[in-house]
């Protein structure tokens, strides 16, 4: 199915934040906002829920730590117990450093990979640039013309105070 989209372009971070907020307050259906850098307050303006990646990170870290600690104890006291400098076979205090490192490794790398997967980012992916300068100095708000009531004029007047730079309609072919 295809959608009719309205691309509105701004040139300052405060404008885009306010524009987005107003759009949402006026019950417009916000598809996405494209900015050259992370604009603070935009999530809240768009009404995005805080990312859950924190939990992923925690879980992975824990898994890594446990696995590594077990591995160290197993290798040095089960698999082949050796008397090293008269120390006990499983001298746990000595195993802490490596456990910690592996925890960090798993948590860090794991989370990043999850993030890429989540946002379907991967090397060589074809970028989908909504509007020239989206990665330079343009702030783009994309609205969906969901119902017949949608009226471009209203939108323009609504965005006037936020010095709107450009506005154009598009038919979005791609499957959502």
């Amino acid at each position, binding site marked *: 199915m295809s959608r009719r989209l309205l691309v509105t372009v701004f040139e300052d971070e405060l404008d885009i934040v306010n524009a987005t907020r107003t759009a949402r307050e006026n019950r417009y259906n916000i598809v996405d906002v494209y900015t050259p850098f992370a604009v603070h307050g935009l999530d809240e303006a768009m009404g995005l829920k805080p990312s859950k990646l924190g939990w992923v990170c925690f879980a992975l870290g824990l898994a890594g730590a446990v696995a590594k600690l077990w591995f160290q104890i197993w290798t040095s006291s089960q698999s082949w117990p*050796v*008397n*090293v*400098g*008269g*120390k*006990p*076979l499983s*001298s746990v205090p000595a195993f802490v450093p490596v456990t910690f490192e592996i925890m960090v490794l798993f948590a860090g790398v794991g989370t990043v990979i999850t993030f890429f997967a989540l946002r379907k980012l991967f090397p060589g992916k074809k970028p989908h640039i909504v509007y020239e300068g989206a990665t330079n100095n343009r702030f783009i708000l994309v609205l969906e013309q969901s119902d017949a009531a949608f009226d471009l004029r209203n939108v323009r007047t609504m965005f006037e105070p936020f010095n709107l730079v450009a506005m154009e309609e598009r038919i979005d072919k791609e499957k959502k």
Partner: protein
Amino acid sequence: MSEYHNVKFEREQETIPHRGIDRRDFLKLSGFTFAGALLGGCQAPKVDKAIPFLVKPEEITPGLSTFYATTCGGCNASCGIITKNRDGRPIKIEGNPSHPISQGGLCAVGQAHLLGLYDSHRLKNPTMLGKETVWNDIDSAIKNTLKEIQTNNGAVRFLSNTISSPTQRNTIAKFLSGFSNAQHIEYDALSVSAILDAHEKTHGTRVLPHYRFDKTEVIVSVDADFLGTWISPVEFTKDYHKGKILNGNNSKFSFHAQIEANVSLTGSNADKRISISPNAYKNFLYDLTTTIEGGKSSIAEVNELARKLLSAKGKSLVVCGVNDIELQLLSNYINHLLSNYGNTIDIETPSKQYRGNDTELQKLISEITEGKISALFIYNGNPLFDIPEGNALKKHIEAIPLSISFSERSDETSSATTFICPEHHSLESWNENEVRAGIYSLSQPVLQPLRNTRSLIESLNAWMDTPKTAYDAIRDEWKNSVFTMQKKENDFQKFWDKCVHDGFAEVESGKNTVQEFSKQSLQNISRSSETTAMALILYPKISIREGKHAHNPWLQELPDPITKIVWDNYVSLSKKTAEHLSVKENDVVEITAQISNERRTLKLPTHIQQGMCDNVVAVALGYGRKGTERFTNIGPEWFEAKPTVNQGELVGKNAAVFLQFVNGSISYNLLQCSVSKTKEQYRLAATQEYHSLQMPEHLVPAGSERRPIIQETTFGAYIQDNSAGSFSKHEYESIWPEEHQYNNHHWGMAIDLTKCTGCSGCVIGCQSENNIPCVGKDEIARNREMTWIRIDRYFQEEENTFSVAFQPMMCHHCNNAPCETVCPVLATVHNEEGLNQQIYNRCVGTRYCSNNCPYKVRRFNWFDYEHGDEMQKLVLNPDVVVRERGVMEKCSFCIQRIQEAKIIAKSNGVALKDGDIQPACQQSCPANAIVFGDMNDKNSELSKRMNDKRYYKVLEEVGTRPAVGYMTLVRNSDEVNNV
């Protein structure tokens, strides 16, 4: 056990431990990528040959060692040795415990002369006028010339070192009897001729007494290094310690005073060391004599010694190492006054180890120089190198019509002679030595001659046209004389077999007839006027001695026990003298002396030696030997490496130029010389850089001026309290639970510092047992010596006292080994018998273990070290892997011996006995200082020592809990002068 077997060592490729060169080289080449390592891992099957005997000799089983008792050819002392043969070739020499002379001990030289057997520079064939030839040709040539000489009654002289083999003596006598004007002259490079001469005068018999150090309570030695190089060091060391027994209340501990100028091994072990110049030796003895006769000396020390000596009449001993008849007469007289003859000095069954006669030698030299000689035979000696004016004789000897050397290599002398008829190496030939009256030590060949050589007996017999093998000759000799001197055995074959098996025979020899002591020879000895001139001492080093073994890299690289310097001889002088001459260590100085109105000079680097007498310089003999130029590139080769010997130069310089005859005997002390500084510098390489347990003054933290490494006390204090001198005990508390028990065996070691003389026999023993390479002078200078056992030597010099302590240091096999915890790859871990294992093939070489070792006993393979040429590689011990570059190594307590002993015990279904396992260092220790054993065995020799009050552990406070311990060093001196 057989007497002779015929083996080609080449047959045994399969058991020579060649390293998997191909694989490892490939590894190195294949870059250092892990892919490379991976590839290196995969390899096509390596085709390796297994070549069995065609006809297997009865007693040889590949992989099994056979042992043969024979006699050491290292020096005249003729100690009893046992060679360990593997696949037909000797790989280790050890002391023969049942031998009456050496009693199981063996010195560094004795153990090292094994390497000489595989010396590729030994002559391959007899040579005539410098060209190699075959025996028949050379024999006929010689016989013809001999005929001429016989016809025109030419003078025939046979010059040799002391020959203590009756068979050889008789053969020579028989041979010479064929000539109208013939004589056999014996001399010794390290001559004690004056002792024999003196006894001829005082007792009417020219013999070398048998000194009984085991019976003495007071020993006064004037410059006699009897624990190091004098006459029979191993025997004397064994006996010496029979007089020093520390056993709680029933201890006995002899008093030993050493009067010397240079610091000798004996001096450093003395209870009291009096340092005086050789100029004063004579007066010292003279004063001692008068004091003992009842007079009084101006010197307190002399009176003190006299008192001590008189208090021990018949149990005292005065020995003098100065080869001067007057001094010897004096010491004989003192011994006579103390009625030591018959008690501590035995001249009725005298020693036969030295009988050189310097007077005759002097006569011969003049004969040679006057060109009176028409035939000269030189056997087992290198006169052109080691006698006074030696090098001057060269042209005269070349002029002699028939000159024959029996030297086994082309040396200074043999290169001057017309013919060289090379003698076997002592391990290749049948021989015997009458070491002492009634004690015959037998030598049997332990492998077939490697070269086309021939024993003296066979040569002489060949020239007499009475061909006879050495074996037959000796066997007959024994049948007719030795056998008849004993009662026990009446079947000769049995007797012979037993002797060959034991390596010696003890028989009843007739007592040597001795006259009453005659004093008249002493009449014209008087006190000489004191001089303060600079004196020069020519002394033999433990390792190189007179230079006979100068071609032996093991000995060249053996650190001198006192100076710790390797690969060179040098001028030792005291701090004061150095300041006076304004020279520093390594400055080259020139010694000048007037000898027989001719100016002699020698340039050598300086070594400043604490404890030396001022105004005295000491230089070691035996250096500058022909053939040592080969050591130029003995070390590893890389672009910053410096050669061990500069191209074309020799190792050290020959100090024999300063030798001269004084009252008919070779004098090693030159009482008048001058020393001057030169511009040159020459780097000496030593294995120890800091020489004291005292911390440097400007760095010393209050209250810890001395490192608590060596426990030391006096005999007096010991008797009061057996734990005298102990450091405060450290209570060890572990934060870990005691998880590791050593229930079966727990190996350990105890080293008695009172016994250890620092002779360094253990160092060579270890080197030969564990395939330790020679690394060359430059590596030593960089402090990269590879020896697993080193002997730490500490000095303590105060205004009037000077003392030395030796401490053998090897891996301590700590229960809580710091090296193990830090090794990332488990290449060094503990085994269930408490050993600290080092696994070479796992080691990646981080050197972390070595850094973390408080004893610094780990050795790293900085390069791929050469193990000598193909020939010398035959000495390698097949039971120990040759370590590759980049791996750490260290003392393993001779794990290969432990494993062997355990396997054998297991196969025989018996338990290991204490003493079954002896590491190489313990086996030959002439002082029994080292004891290895099982700490779990409560009755083991080790446990006994561990329960001794003197037992302590070094650096206990670090908490490493070592398995090696030491025993307090006790001296019979009045006050402790802690090293």
